[in-house]
Structures are given as structure tokens and as C-alpha cells.
């Protein structure tokens, strides 16, 4: 039997050893799971497994944490730890002594002294076993190589499921916004701005928030359509909730379902007079009128959104819309550093345009062309009328 001081020292030692042991097991498990997760991400990136497979395997891998926590310890580990502080085997002898043994009181008293001395001994740090070191190195190597490869292939570190197909899909989806039927073909070379195709390959573009990307593309589509309408003299189509102007049919509806391509929320930029009766107003999620899908809400409801949806405003002006949209984008992109000036109002702009183009206006005075036969008939008729009177 051992005394209270020795027992207390042993409990402290045992608690410290158990905490260290658990922390080590958990750390090793965490590193191994991280390495396995990297391997799964790499497999996803290579197209070897899909999302379901990745999630299932990751679930299995993470499920192993109880194995690390409840790994059966070496039954001799406590004794080995005890012998590091009990060099003279006094405590061990005291523990082994049966109650009533002649040596027990002596061992107990000596053990109390040994425990006091052992309490001052700092536990020696044990070297990591060779197998554990190998595992640690392997896991660290896998993580480093995987993340390096991800940086090289995907342009960013990858945690969790990653797939090249999904990235490509997003890029193609973004390009669809500019390939609508009413958008001009860049090959025609009409001078309209076209989106940069290389933008999707830009690593920064890939890092962009999808919502931000959709909003940006929708704004670009707005500018694109407005500019085109202005050039071709097409009247902008009415927005959702507005009455169609005379002669202008409602725009064709976007395909229902899904989020739709960015820019779909604008209701399309269809030509005036496009078939309307068979184009019902879109309803529900994913429809062209649904603002949730494409960031159209921002453009529809924002006070400076470029669409004169403010109360009382009915007249549409493509130039005004374009300018407002441009101001909005410029302000968002440049922040407070650069802002569109407010000095040049719309009336002033129109006056300036009128003044500028007025000098180019052609004025030709042309006498009305007189038909001799008609003139003779008119004279004869007047004569006849005069004779009757």
C-alpha cells in the first residue's frame, strides 16, 4: 500500500500521461484524416469519384475518430511511466506489498519520501515511435503535395469536394448569358462590347462569389441590351408589372425552371413586336421574373437601378437607363474614389446633343413639284365653279 502523498502524485502523473496520450492520438488522427480528405479531393478533381462518393468516403473517414480516442492503451504504459520517476522501485515495492506484510510500514514511509522527490522530477519527453513518425511524415507529405497540385491545377487550395467539371460548367453557364439569340454575334463586328472570354480562366474570376458573378454578368447584359436598343432604335420592352406600350408585345418568357442564366431576370431583351400572346408572364422560382435567381431584384427595385421604376415614372428612356446603370456600376467598382458627376443632367445632355448635331442638319428649300395636268384640271374646275356661281 502507498500513502496519500504517493497516491496523489501517481494520480497527477496518470492524468497528465492520459491527457498527453489522448492529445497525441487525436493529433495523429486529425493529420491522417486531413491527408485522406486531400486524397479524396484529388480523386474528385481527377474525376475518379463524384460528390456522393466523396461525401460517403469522407463520412467514413471522419467516423473513425472514436477509434483514435478509444484505442486500447498498452497495459504496461502506466508502469513504464511510474518507473521513470520511481528509480529505486520504492513505490512499486510499496504497491506490491500486501496489507499486513512486515515490510509494508517501512515501504509506505519510504514511498512517501520517494513520492515527494518524484514530484519534482519533470516527465521526460519520449521519442515518437518510428511507425508514428513515418505516418506523420507520410500524411504531411500527402497534404503538401496535394495542396501544391491543387494550386497548380485549380488555382487555389482545395478543401472538400472539388471537380473540374463543375468549374467548367460554371464558366459555360456564364458565357450563355452573352449568347442569347437577341445578342449580336461578335463575329458581325458591329462594335458592341463583348465579354472577355479569358475572364473565366482567370484564377481571380474563379474565386469570385457566384452571386456576385451572376449580378455582374446581369448588369453587363443590361448595358449590352440597352446600348443595342439605343443604337438600333428599338424601344425597351416593358418590365414586369408594366403595361406594354402600344405596338410592343410582351417579351418572350425565359425557360422556366432552375435559376436560369444570369441576366434572365431582366425579362429578356427581345425585339419589339416579338410574339407575345404565347409568352405568359413567368411565375415562380427560376422564372424570368423571379428576382431571386439572377439578382434581378436588385436591378428591379434599386432606386438607381437604371430602370425608371420609381413611382410616377412611366416614360422609358434607353439613354437614361444606360447612364444610370453605368453610374451604378462605376460607383460600385471604384467606390468613393471615382463617381459619376451629377452636374450634367439629362436635359443638359439632350441640349448638348441637340446643339452638337444641329450644325450638321441639312436644310434644302425645294419648291413643290406642280403637275401640269393636275394644274389644268384644277383651273378648269375653278372656272366651271365660277361659271355656275
Amino acid at each position, binding site marked *: *500500500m*502507498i500513502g496519500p502523498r504517493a*497516491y496523489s502524485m*501517481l*494520480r497527477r502523473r*496518470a*492524468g497528465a*500521461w*492520459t*491527457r498527453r*496520450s*489522448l492529445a497525441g492520438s487525436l493529433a495523429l488522427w486529425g493529420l491522417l484524416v486531413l491527408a485522406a480528405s486531400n486524397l479524396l479531393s484529388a480523386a474528385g478533381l481527377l474525376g475518379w469519384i463524384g460528390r*456522393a462518393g466523396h*461525401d*460517403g468516403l469522407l*463520412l*467514413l473517414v*471522419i*467516423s*473513425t*475518430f*472514436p*477509434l483514435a*480516442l*478509444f*484505442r*486500447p*492503451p*498498452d*497495459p*504496461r*504504459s*502506466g*508502469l513504464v511511466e*511510474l518507473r521513470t520517476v520511481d528509480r529505486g522501485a520504492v513505490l*512499486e515495492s510499496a*504497491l*506490491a506489498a500486501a496489507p499486513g506484510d512486515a515490510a509494508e510500514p517501512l515501504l509506505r514511509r519510504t514511498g512517501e519520501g520517494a513520492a515527494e522527490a518524484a514530484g519534482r522530477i519533470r516527465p521526460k519527453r519520449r521519442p515518437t515511435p518510428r511507425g508514428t513518425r513515418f505516418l506523420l511524415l507520410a500524411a504531411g507529405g500527402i497534404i503538401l503535395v496535394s495542396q501544391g497540385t491543387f494550386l497548380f491545377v485549380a488555382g487555389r487550395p482545395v478543401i472538400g469536394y472539388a471537380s473540374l467539371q463543375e468549374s467548367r460548367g460554371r464558366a459555360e453557364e456564364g458565357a450563355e448569358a452573352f449568347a442569347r439569340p437577341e445578342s449580336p454575334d461578335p463575329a458581325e463586328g458591329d462594335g458592341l462590347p463583348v465579354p472577355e472570354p479569358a475572364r473565366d480562366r482567370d484564377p481571380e474570376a474563379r474565386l469570385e462569389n457566384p452571386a456576385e458573378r451572376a449580378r455582374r454578368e446581369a448588369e453587363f447584359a443590361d448595358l449590352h441590351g440597352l446600348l443595342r436598343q439605343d443604337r438600333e432604335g428599338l424601344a425597351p420592352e416593358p418590365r414586369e408589372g408594366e403595361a406594354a406600350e402600344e405596338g410592343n408585345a410582351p417579351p418572350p418568357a425565359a425557360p422556366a425552371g432552375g435559376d436560369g442564366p444570369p441576366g434572365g431576370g431582366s425579362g429578356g431583351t427581345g425585339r419589339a413586336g416579338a410574339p407575345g400572346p404565347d409568352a405568359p408572364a413567368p411565375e415562380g422560382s427560376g422564372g424570368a421574373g423571379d428576382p431571386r435567381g439572377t439578382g434581378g431584384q436588385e436591378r428591379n427595385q434599386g432606386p438607381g437601378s437604371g430602370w425608371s421604376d420609381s413611382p410616377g415614372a412611366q416614360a422609358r428612356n434607353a439613354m437614361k437607363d444606360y447612364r444610370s446603370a453605368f453610374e451604378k456600376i462605376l460607383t460600385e467598382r471604384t467606390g468613393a474614389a471615382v463617381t459619376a458627376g451629377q452636374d450634367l443632367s439629362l436635359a443638359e445632355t439632350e441640349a448638348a446633343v441637340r446643339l452638337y448635331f444641329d450644325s450638321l442638319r441639312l436644310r434644302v428649300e425645294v419648291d413643290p413639284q406642280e403637275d401640269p395636268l393636275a394644274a389644268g384640271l384644277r383651273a378648269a374646275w375653278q372656272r366651271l365653279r365660277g361659271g355656275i356661281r
Partner: protein
Amino acid sequence: MRMRRTGRGFPGLREGIPAALRDAGTRAAAILRRPGGPVLTAVFAAAGAGLYPAAAAINRFLADRFALPFAVSVLPEELLKLGMAGAAAALARRLGDPGKGLAAVAGATGFAALENLAYLGAFPGAGVFLRLGWSLPLHVNGAALFALALASRRPGAAAAAALLASAAYHAAFNAAAAAAPAPLVTAGGVAINLVVCAGLAFAARLRFAWGGILDGKPRL
């Protein structure tokens, strides 16, 4: 003639093969006896995973034929886990290493992992990962409690108490999950589960590595 030559030419072959087999057996036994041996862990994990369809079938059988309270549904699972812990404890006694009883935890891990995979198949999505903090520790805590109880001085009484405690704990979490708890309650449940799990892991490691010393009975 040729056969006789072969026998003369390789005199150690007939003796070498049995020796190699004996050596392999010794090595396998050594691996099996090693603390936390991977073979033992794998065997119990597979056995635990195999218990999941059995538990599901029993639960379905009971639900189809009897109008039992919801809390009763945990009993088949807990009883199966207790049986697995009993098998692990018996093996540990035979091997002379009480720590081997923790192989029951590997069985519970296999059970919960297969259950989680079944849920992932039924409800694909990231929400299934929440079960790693909800249902997985639930099963593991029960098995660890059984293992500790069966390694105690009075295993019968301790195991009965552990069964009651584990079933009540399991039923409480099942009832909470069925009530669609708020995120804060869910986070609290996960935290309780993990804290209990860490506490049991600490107790188990302390018990099976230092138990003899702290009890005054070191195995010299």
C-alpha cells in the same frame, strides 16, 4: 527418380514451409495481441456494421407488430451493443489484457458509420455530417460505458446500470432529434455528446493503462 532428387536437393523445403507457417501464425497472433491491434479493431468494426441491418430489422419487426413507445426502439440497438461489448470483454480476459474490451467501441463505430451511410443514401446532403456529432458519439458512448462496466469488479451489476443509462441517454437524444430541435439545441446536444465521449475516452485510457497501479494492484 526425379522426385527423389528433388527431395534430396531441397531438404529444408519440407521443414521450411511448416516453420514459415508457424512464424506467420506467431506474427499474426502478435499483431492480434498488440494493443489496439488493427486486426482486432477491423474485425469488431465489421461485426458492428453487420449488426446495423439486424438492429434495423428488429426495430421494423417490433414497429410493425406492436404499438410500442418510441423510446423502446433504442433497446434492440443497446442490447446488441452490450452483447458485442460482452464478447470483447471475454476476449480481453482470455488475452489477459482488459484494454482489449475497448474493441466494442470499434464495433459501435462500425454500426454508427453504416447507419450514417444509410442516412446519406436516403438523404444526400451536407446535413448528414451533423450525425458525426449526434448519433456517432451516441453509439460510441454506450459501447465505451459497457466496456468500462464489464471491466469493473462487479461486471454484472455495472453492465445492467450501464444498459439503463445508455438506453435512457439514447432515447433522450432520439426524442430530441424527432422534435426537430432548434440549431442552438442541436449544437448543445453535439457538445454534450462530444464532452461525454472525451470524458469516457479519458476514463477508459486511465483505467486500462493505470488502473492496476491506482487500485494498488500493479501488474508487475
